[in-house]
């Protein structure tokens, strides 16, 4: 689209690393081949994904405008950049930021790109990446060249590849870390980038580093490869190493990573990662992408067998000098201060005091402070990026890091400079207080731009932020420190499983209309590297979620025991009590003329108007299906109660029964005489809804039906607690999919 695109190659000649320049040239050629029809759209889709060029909502050329589905008549017509993805449709460009580390000049480059190719906003993701939205595919090579000249690559930012290597943003300055993991994370990132052993995965592979076990910064438990820094003494000598975890991941059904090795010395870090990649590439699922993450391979093999295979692979690896050559100089690139240490000043205003309280913390180096720049919804403007570049030049050696909470941190700030730094941040609109508190809400893009979004996660986050912001500093301290995380669908990009209050988008039908909802997820733990995962309790209409937050936090303040965390409080009162507390909020308002209930946050369009039910005949079927699906929801909740009570066998059986109930509800809409026999239910469900693909989700196909089939095959199993928990998650998703299937079938075709 940009008239200058072709000029950047010459302009930046010699300024880009050769390998990146060649890589971008190849991509540009692939764009030409695709335009000429000489490259298959599926192959092109994967190749662009591996360069971080992602699809975006409405890229199939259709958009529901609140009244009808409109066709978008792009100039390039039917040319596609992937299956069902039109060429001209704007996309998202993900930019990898290893360990979240950026320099001032790189911030300026990102500012330029946000302005010239996107909508003026750079968005920080929950994996320390930067994303630009509404980007035209024709602009991506020029954009990549400008990034490469600034030392940044988008290579393998998406696709079935090693994604951004994330790391604790406090590495090197945190008082609780074992040691600075920065050089190790950078070495792993560089080593695995484009590595031949990492090109044949069935799905993505996400590594992460943490400097300690107790905090959340690295989130090691929810990564494919999680590394936690540890030290131990051998023969009187203190040695560095890593606890290595494998097979963690959120997604629809979250898995806690398993301990692979309690102490991996630095010289074994890269070769072991390479061996894991090889085993994953060789044995990981390829055909069914819904079972293709490493977590499934580890689960299916068991950690012992997986370890055995990896160690065997390790023994057979040809030596690579890169495994260890970085170690000798590992400390040389450590960040150093620009300014002399100093004392933190007395606050001169209430605003400054609030900011000092929530957005700063002392470094382990005396006289220096870590400053968090809290970004609303992870968004920052081009102007602010330039201002931030100026600030980090003024007060530090030009460095800054992104965080998984969608913020920036500035490290090595002299305490004596804090007042001036605050003044400069304030002038740039970057001095919002509340970092890491209940107002610092994390959200994925949701229905704003994501193709998979069901509900408006950003709209809800903005609304909660506004409401909580008004009173956060009057709230109880324990409430202030809670974490809210929101995903627009079950895929967990907003990390809702590891929040105190997690929400993910679903839809329900009420009074004949689809209504945006969020599942309320409770019991998650952010600390201890995402130490435990929450479970969904109940689905509540989007517009009632602020009241959910108010009721839960009010009850916590009123009824908590001394020192009791929110997670412990929820566990003590039990999910049945929570459900009772929220029960009235699950229903639509008595006054159905209030149409705002049928719209999502910050979106005036009637939510999925095409879901309007048809006719009285369909109405009867709808009632029957509704009844069955409600029963299924009740059962899966009872399964949770059984899990909560430690009765894992009952949890397993009840979750399985809830899936049967949902399947039965669908089948009975076509076959009223269906018996209660599980074999017959599954058989009829398979024939009528799976084989016909009626049950298939537009994006994940028949994934959720497989949960039912697997549960039916293993109905008599004796489950472990972990397996029971997984089945409950799967049952919840199967029921959601049944709701969606039923909504689709009851919907007249949109025009």
């Amino acid at each position, binding site marked *: 689209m*940009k*008239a200058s695109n072709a*000029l950047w190659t010459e302009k930046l000649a010699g300024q880009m690393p050769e390998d990146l320049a060649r890589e971008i040239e190849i991509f540009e050629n692939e764009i030409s081949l695709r335009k000429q029809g000489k490259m298959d759209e599926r192959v092109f889709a994967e190749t662009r994904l591996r360069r971080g060029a992602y699809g975006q909502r409405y890229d199939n050329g259709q*958009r529901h405008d*609140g009244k009808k589905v409109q066709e978008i008549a792009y100039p390039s017509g039917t040319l596609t950049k992937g299956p069902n993805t039109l060429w001209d449709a704007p996309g998202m460009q993900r930019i990898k930021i290893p360990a979240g580390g950026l320099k001032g000049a790189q911030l300026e480059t990102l500012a330029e790109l946000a302005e010239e190719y996107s909508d*003026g906003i750079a968005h920080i993701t929950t994996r320390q990446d930067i994303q630009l939205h509404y980007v035209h595919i024709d602009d991506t090579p020029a954009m990549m060249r400008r990034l490469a000249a600034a030392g940044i690559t988008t290579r393998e930012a998406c696709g079935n590849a090693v994604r951004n290597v994330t790391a604790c943003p406090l590495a090197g300055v945190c008082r609780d870390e074992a040691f600075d993991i920065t050089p190790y994370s950078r070495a792993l990132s560089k080593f695995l980038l484009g590595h031949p052993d990492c090109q044949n995965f069935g799905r993505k592979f996400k590594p992460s580093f943490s400097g300690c076990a107790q905090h959340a910064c690295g989130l090691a438990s929810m990564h494919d490869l999680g590394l936690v820094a540890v030290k131990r003494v051998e023969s009187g000598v203190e040695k560095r190493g890593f606890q290595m975890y494998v097979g963690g991941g959120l997604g629809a059904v979250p898995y806690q990573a398993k301990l692979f090795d309690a102490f991996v010395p630095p010289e074994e870090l890269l070769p072991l990662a390479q061996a894991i990649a090889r085993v994953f590439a060789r044995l990981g699922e390829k055909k069914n992408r819904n079972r293709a993450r490493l977590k499934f391979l580890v689960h299916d093999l068991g950690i012992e067998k997986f370890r055995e295979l990896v160690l065997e692979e390790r023994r057979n690896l040809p030596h690579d000098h890169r495994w260890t050559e970085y170690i000798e100089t590992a400390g040389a690139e450590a960040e150093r201060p620009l300014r002399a240490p100093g004392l933190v000043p007395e606050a001169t205003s209430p605003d400054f005091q609030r900011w000092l309280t929530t957005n700063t913390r002392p470094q382990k180096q005396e006289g220096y402070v870590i400053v968090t720049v809290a970004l609303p919804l992870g968004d920052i*403007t081009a102007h602010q990026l330039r201002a931030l570049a100026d600030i980090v030049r003024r007060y530090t050696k030009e460095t800054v890091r992104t965080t998984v909470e969608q913020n920036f941190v500035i490290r090595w700030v002299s305490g004596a400079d804090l007042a001036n730094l605050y003044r400069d941040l304030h002038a740039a609109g970057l001095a919002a207080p509340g970092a890491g508190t209940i107002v610092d809400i994390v959200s994925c893009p949701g229905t704003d731009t994501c193709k998979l979004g069901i509900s408006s996660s950003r709209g809800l986050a903005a609304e909660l932020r506004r409401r909580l912001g008004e009173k956060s500093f009057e709230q109880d301290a324990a409430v202030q420190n809670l974490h809210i995380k929101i995903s627009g669908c079950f895929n967990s990009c907003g990390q809702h499983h590891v929040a105190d209050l997690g929400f993910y988008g679903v839809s329900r039908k009420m009074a004949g209309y689809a209504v945006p909802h969020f599942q309320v997820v409770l019991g998650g733990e952010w600390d201890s590297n995402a130490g435990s995962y929450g479970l969904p309790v109940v689905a509540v209409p989007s517009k009632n979620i602020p009241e959910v937050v108010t009721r839960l936090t009010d009850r916590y303040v009123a009824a908590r025991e001394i020192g009791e965390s929110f997670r412990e409080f929820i566990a003590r009162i039990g999910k049945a009590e929570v459900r009772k507390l929220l029960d009235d909020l699950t229903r639509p308002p008595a006054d159905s003329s209030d149409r705002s209930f049928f719209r999502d946050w910050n979106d005036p369009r009637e939510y999925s108007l095409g879901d309007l039910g048809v006719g009285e005949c369909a109405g009867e079927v709808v009632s029957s299906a509704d009844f069955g699906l409600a029963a299924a929801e009740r059962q899966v909740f009872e399964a949770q109660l059984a899990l909560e009570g430690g009765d894992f066998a009952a949890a397993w059986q009840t979750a399985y029964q809830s899936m049967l109930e949902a399947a039965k509800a669908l089948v009975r809409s076509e076959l009223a005489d269906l018996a209660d026999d599980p074999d017959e239910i599954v058989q009829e469900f398979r024939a009528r809804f799976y084989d016909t693909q009626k049950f298939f989700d537009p994006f994940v196909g028949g994934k959720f039906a497989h949960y039912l089939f697997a549960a039916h095959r293993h109905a008599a199993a004796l489950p472990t607690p972990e397996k029971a928990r997984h089945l409950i998650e799967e049952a919840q998703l199967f029921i959601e999919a049944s709701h969606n299937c039923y909504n689709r079938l009851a919907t007249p075709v949109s025009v």
Partner: protein
Amino acid sequence: MDLQHVNAKLLVRDAEAVDVERVIPVFHGWIQERTLEEILLDVADYRHVPAGPGVILIGHEANYSLDDAGYRLGVRYNRKAPLEGSAQDRLEQATRAALRACNLLENDSRLEGKIRFDGRNLELSVNDRLLASNNDATREALEPEIRVFCARLFAGKEYSLDYDREPRRLFSVAVKASEAFTSDALLRNLAS
């Protein structure tokens, strides 16, 4: 100089009284009713960002927004697709599009007349640093074009130009008319 990707922003008066949220359904309505000739795609809400792009109507050829960059609220037209024609054609296209959008907002009953062009202040910028770096060479090359265009726009009345000289920013000039015009009047001037 190949002048492309022109941005035109018309500042609005009484910015403190404008509730930016109310423009969201208006922009959605423009998509529903295909109010403009360009391909309109979606509405992006960035009200949570201080001095940010506000609310954007995302299009294929261009974005329209009620933009608060620099804490100066205004109706912005951001041309994305290249245009044929002369520099005058491109300046006119962007300014006319911004004026038309502003005029629609001024006359939309849902906004109750709260959004009004302030009558004097227009910002022109070029959203492409390679074609138009923010330096003296660009200023020297473009000023004659801008002056010819402004003479037409303001029907020969006086105006001033104030360049943004921060080299990292886009080439940008604030144009201030010596007397107030309505959006209708400026559209008529461009049509004559």
